[in-house]
């Protein structure tokens, strides 16, 4: 597995001016794409060939020693893998796909990357320029299909554009609030030879400001509010991870002494065990953070966007609080929650400015209220979830055993549904970039391919993909990718023989009318074995610890299926249309 043992190198320092311009040479558009990838420090590409992207694949044959291409089993798998890669490595993921169906198969992943701000650059092949608009074989209007789900997209019909367009693509995908970029290249442009004059990384686009200007006035005002606050509360999201501002954030939290709760995508930005980390926000978040959102006097939101799954009913959300909102995207300010003080900017820059101006404080009384509510939640929910005395296995106890064995050092990739909520509630994280999940879009089928990419992005870390029996069946073809490339991911299927989250809602809000949620599954062990992946399946509590240990100790990929309680529910829960303080413990 030589491709897994190399550590990713830092992207080359952007010193375009210092670099002497190489002598022009003749190059095809396809080779120019690959040169651009090398210049951008790309090492791994997830892709699938096809007619309209064949010239690029032909050129790739000569770059095999420098660019590692992972052949997935479906283009959706490629883009989810690129997302997983981006999320663990903190770099831009890359995808190749062909025109028509190849490109349309990317759409779900683009939408996912768009809403979760994941930097991805996708290259799609397109029919010859003279065939555009003729309903040619495998022609689709990819640019218009993907416009709402890309940060930027562009169609190249002339090879001479390729170096500058790709430089723009990588710059846009990775800067500011990151996002997916799609570049559609017609076949003639891939084949066209042109005078290649080298590659210059993009550092400026006239119409694009990745970061808003930091305003001192707002920093002062925010600091003033924080210093005067009696019950301040920090809620933080992925902005901290994307901004690589974990240290700055920690310094801010520790100096201010303010309790901090994470959104599902903010998970792992602060160690779970940090004394000021009070848990998760949102629909299935922790009791204290939800209830006390409606009791704090100053709410400090850092790099998060007040998703409806976090806020619950908006007109009853934190109405008593003055809101300080730190975000790099000006469009997020006042979008859902009106900010008293908007702190526009990159939190890596704004947090230290704020930290310098706030007083060192502790809030023991206020913290005790979080602790008391945690105790209530522990007694009502957590205790039985993590250590059930009898009955079927719970997802929580699986997580509990997993935490004990990994020590909180693993990358946890989840799919979507009950297992996702349980994993995010109970997984322990010691370091950042460790929680990979589809937060905004809630894409079932995300987990398995994302785990493949996550492993390539963090080859030295243990990657555990926790997936439900439903979501696993949406993208299980990627077992083929794991087999072919020996990708060392641990697949943990939590099988409750139901589409559990929908079933839970049907139980609670639709009079137990279980409409099409009783999904059956194949024998996952046999399935894994067909792909030459070691596997086992357990139902008994007594086997759990050893089974998890076997999975983690195994060299290479491993699939463990754990049968859990059929009709277990995830609690606490903020029912839809309710305020966060109306969170139910049962």
């Amino acid at each position, binding site marked *: 597995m030589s491709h897994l043992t190399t550590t990713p190198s830092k992207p080359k320092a952007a010193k375009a001016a210092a670099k002497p311009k190489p002598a022009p040479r003749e190059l095809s558009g396809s080779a120019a794409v690959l040169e651009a990838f090398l210049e951008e420090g790309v090492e791994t590409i997830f892709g699938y060939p096809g007619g309209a992207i064949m010239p690029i694949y032909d050129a790739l044959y000569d770059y095999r020693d420098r660019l590692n291409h992972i052949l997935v089993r479906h283009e959706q798998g490629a883009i989810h893998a690129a997302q997983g890669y981006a999320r663990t490595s903190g770099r831009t993921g890359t995808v190749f796909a062909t025109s028509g169906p190849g490109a349309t198969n990317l759409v779900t992943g683009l939408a996912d990357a768009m809403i979760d701000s994941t930097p991805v650059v996708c290259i799609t092949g397109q029919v010859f320029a003279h065939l555009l608009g003729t309903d040619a074989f495998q022609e689709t209007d990819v640019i218009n299909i993907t416009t709402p789900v890309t940060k930027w997209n562009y169609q190249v019909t002339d090879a001479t554009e390729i170096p500058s367009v790709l430089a723009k693509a990588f710059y846009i995908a990775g800067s500011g609030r990151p996002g997916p970029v799609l570049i559609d290249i017609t076949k003639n442009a891939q084949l066209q030879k042109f005078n290649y004059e080298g590659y210059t990384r993009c550092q400026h686009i006239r119409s694009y*400001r990745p970061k808003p*200007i930091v305003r001192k006035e707002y920093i002062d005002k925010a600091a003033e509010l924080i210093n005067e606050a009696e019950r301040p509360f920090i809620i933080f999201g992925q902005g901290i991870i994307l901004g690589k501002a974990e240290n700055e954030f920690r310094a801010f939290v520790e100096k201010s002494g303010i309790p901090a709760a994470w959104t599902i995508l903010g998970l792992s930005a602060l160690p779970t065990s940090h004394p000021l980390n009070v848990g998760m926000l949102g629909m299935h978040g922790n009791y204290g953070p939800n209830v006390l959102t409606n009791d704090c006097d100053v709410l400090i939101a850092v790099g998060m966007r007040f998703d409806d799954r976090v806020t619950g009913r908006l007109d009853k959300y934190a109405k008593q609080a003055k809101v300080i909102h730190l975000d790099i995207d000006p469009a997020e300010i006042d979008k859902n929650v009106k900010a008293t003080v908007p702190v*526009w900017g990159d939190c890596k820059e704004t947090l230290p400015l704020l930290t310098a101006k706030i007083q060192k404080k502790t809030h023991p009384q206020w913290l005790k209220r979080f602790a008391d509510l945690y105790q209530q939640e522990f007694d009502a929910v957590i205790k039985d979830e993590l250590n059930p005395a009898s009955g079927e296995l719970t997802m929580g106890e699986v997580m509990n055993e997993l935490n004990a064995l990994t020590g909180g050092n693993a990358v946890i990739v989840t799919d979507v549904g009950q297992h996702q909520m349980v994993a995010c509630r109970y997984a322990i994280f010691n370091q950042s970039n460790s929680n990979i999940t589809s937060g905004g879009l809630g894409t079932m089928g995300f987990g398995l391919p994302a785990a493949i990419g996550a492993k390539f992005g963090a080859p030295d870390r243990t990657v555990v993909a926790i997936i439900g029996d439903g979501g696993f069946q949406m993208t299980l073809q990627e077992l083929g990718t794991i087999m072919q490339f020996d990708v060392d991911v641990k697949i943990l299927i939590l099988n409750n023989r139901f589409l559990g989250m929908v079933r839970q809602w049907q139980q609670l809000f639709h009079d137990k009318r279980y409409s099409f949620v009783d999904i059956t599954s194949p024998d996952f062990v046999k399935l894994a074995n067909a792909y030459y992946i070691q596997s086992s399946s357990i139902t008994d509590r007594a086997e759990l610890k050893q089974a998890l240990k076997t999975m983690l100790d195994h060299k290479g990929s491993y699939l463990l299926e754990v049968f859990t309680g059929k009709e277990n529910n995830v609690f606490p829960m903020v029912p839809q249309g309710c305020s966060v303080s109306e969170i139910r413990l049962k």
Partner: protein
Amino acid sequence: MTTNKEEYTITVYTENQIGLINRIAILFSRRKINIESLNTSPTEVEGIHRFTIVINETEEVVRKLCRQLEKQVDILKAYFNTNEEIIWQEMALYKVSTDEIAEKVKVERLLREYGARAVVIRKDYTVFETTGQREETDRLIAVLEPLGLIEFVRSARIAIIKDSSGFHEKLKEFELAAPGEELVENEYLDKQDQVFSM
């Protein structure tokens, strides 16, 4: 903040890029907002285009929409204004039968009273043109309709913002503000709208 719907004119400064109109249009259609009028035009700055879009919405919706517009990579700036804050005009063309019009109306009175201009006069038909606001162009329809108005078309709205000093200065300001520069002082919380935010 007013919650009443009102007519707003949105002025969007953009790069000249294929497909940008789609990127702009879907921001409206995604929110189920009907575009009443849309015009594209060059500006006083070479290479920069200007979209003039009219919608009926509340101030809050328009404000958020403009932020979403500005978020697009190829868009430099989006302003929104009420009708009081702009000078605006539309143009209309009216095709009528020359016989009808010559027989029944004093054409010179028509031209004077309605500020109309005859663009084409042929034996079979005449085309008039007026420029003005909606009620002005509508008034001439009312007059011509009984005379057998054959064809009518009205252009999109074009508008000039009263207190704008042009985009040249803004662009310079924008270019100067390179990413990662030092703090800006003397901007006040209560003037958020006026702050050139990109």
